[in-house]
């Protein structure tokens, strides 16, 4: 347990007792994460914000069911996952492509990816740690590009300009980042894979 954890643990107890300031802390901590996760499946940033808001409201309304600090993240992501699945299944995700078959295939793949994610409390804490560690271990330039892209939602061209490199270099950094992350996570993902994957 580090300091952060004991600080959050206090907040968690206050949250359980209905303290809104404590809730706001968790709201701020998780809002962007849920949005950033969901948008990968529903492709509409505003919709994804609505979804994140809904998830957090749901958390507040069900606070008595959340049993531990780590349970908050599991609760929120489980909600986001099932919400995304519902939206996809009920055809509420906007068509991205002119070709309807592509839209359909994309939804099928997304359903598969979502179904393969299990947000158990224990697992999530471990996963969060592995991801943070992996990102921080990326080579500096690659890390910078990755963060600008993934967390600041910048376009390749913007990143290229900011970092004074070519567009190709940005793409190469991203490809590299993704490859490294995939390798680092692969042990972990592979294990989930055997459990879930069957197609």
């Amino acid at each position, binding site marked *: 347990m580090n300091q952060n954890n004991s600080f959050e643990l206090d907040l968690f107890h206050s949250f359980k007792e209905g303290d809104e300031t404590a809730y706001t802390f968790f709201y701020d901590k998780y809002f962007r994460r849920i949005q950033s996760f969901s948008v*990968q499946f529903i492709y509409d940033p505003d919709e994804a914000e609505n979804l994140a808001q809904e998830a957090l409201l749901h958390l507040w309304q069900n606070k008595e069911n959340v049993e531990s600090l780590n349970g908050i993240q599991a609760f929120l992501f489980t909600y986001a996952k099932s919400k995304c699945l519902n939206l996809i299944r*009920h055809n509420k995700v906007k068509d991205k492509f002119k070709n309807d078959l592509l839209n359909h295939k*994309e939804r099928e793949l997304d359903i598969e990816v979502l179904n393969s994610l299990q947000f158990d409390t224990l697992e999530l804490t471990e996963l969060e740690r592995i*991801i943070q560690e992996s990102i921080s271990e990326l080579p500096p330039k690659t890390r910078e590009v990755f963060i600008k892209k993934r967390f600041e939602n910048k376009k390749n061209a913007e990143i290229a300009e900011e970092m004074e490199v070519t567009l190709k270099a940005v793409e190469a950094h991203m490809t590299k980042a993704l490859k490294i992350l995939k390798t680092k*996570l692969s042990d972990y993902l592979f294990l989930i894979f055997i*459990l879930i994957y*069957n197609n």
Partner: protein
Amino acid sequence: MTSEIIYKYLSNEASEQEVQQLFEWIEASEENKKQFISLKKTWALTALSGTISREVPVVALQPKNKIRTYFKYAAILVVLFGLGKLAFYFNERTAVSKEVVLELGDGRLEFFTEKNLNTLVNDKGELVARKFPDQIVYFGKVQDEDVLYNTLKIPYGKTFKLKLSDGTLVSLNSGTTLRYPEQFGINGNRNVYLTGEAFFEVAKDKQHPFIVHSDQVEIEVLGTRFNVSAYPEDKTVSSVLVEGSIKMSEKENPLNTVLLKPSQMAIWQNQSKKITTKNVDTSFYEAWTQGELAFNNTPFSTITKIIERTYDVEIINENAVLAKQNFTGSIKISESSVENILDLLKRDTPFNYSIEQKTITIKPIFHN
């Protein structure tokens, strides 16, 4: 080349043409699809880390090895049903179509061929499913009184995938029949009826328990992944739980019930009507869904049955020594022919065999 397109796709900057190209690549092989899915997963999961400061690396403190042990306990449930109706089954088998056949609620029959990709409409003309050459995807819900059942029959030598209207994913093994609601009702249990072997990934829904029925036993789940094998020629029903929890009960006598823990196998005996449990390595019971045959100290008689279903052949074993032999190992179905497998087994325990059309006769070595 491809990895750049994947990255472009993930960051939403790929053109429609590039996406088309990417999806073609994904469909080209299972391996590609796996790769893509794990990349997309990685990409989506990076959201978990929140915004990380670009300048200061976060230092990790904990040891690395915890995940593996944790995942050992996660689990999949595998169930094998057996119903001793051998003679009946084999008579029926000769009459069965070599195509996957879908029987609709109103008795219409649909055949699946390579080229027939279309949609499925119910008796009211509403779209209920999309059909693909090796897969059907259902959607929607209906009032309970409107629940209609479809029946899907998979011949020997083929496998098939099905997505039920609640989102449950079902892989069907060779020689299997599954009866299931075209659309699940709004209330009540989710009931399906199985003969043969299927792997279920049940969509979580605590209000509506998912129940797999076989002749004498039923298995109730609230949302987990498990395999059910209910081939009529087997005399047992066994179930292996990898994750979550399931309950196996005798239909006639619901008090005869067992609650399974992960990595446990429950075995139902048709004759004694008893359910016993033991610990197993679950990976052997899910291998078929990945296109593999896996044997763990498996008797040759069981292996021949599996080969018969998988490759749609008939095996006559005249080798008494071999019949008592057990084998361990795994084989990729797509990369192996029946001959490959037999040759592999032969290396362990020598025997002769001859193939005449679809009948394989196995003989002792001294017979020639």
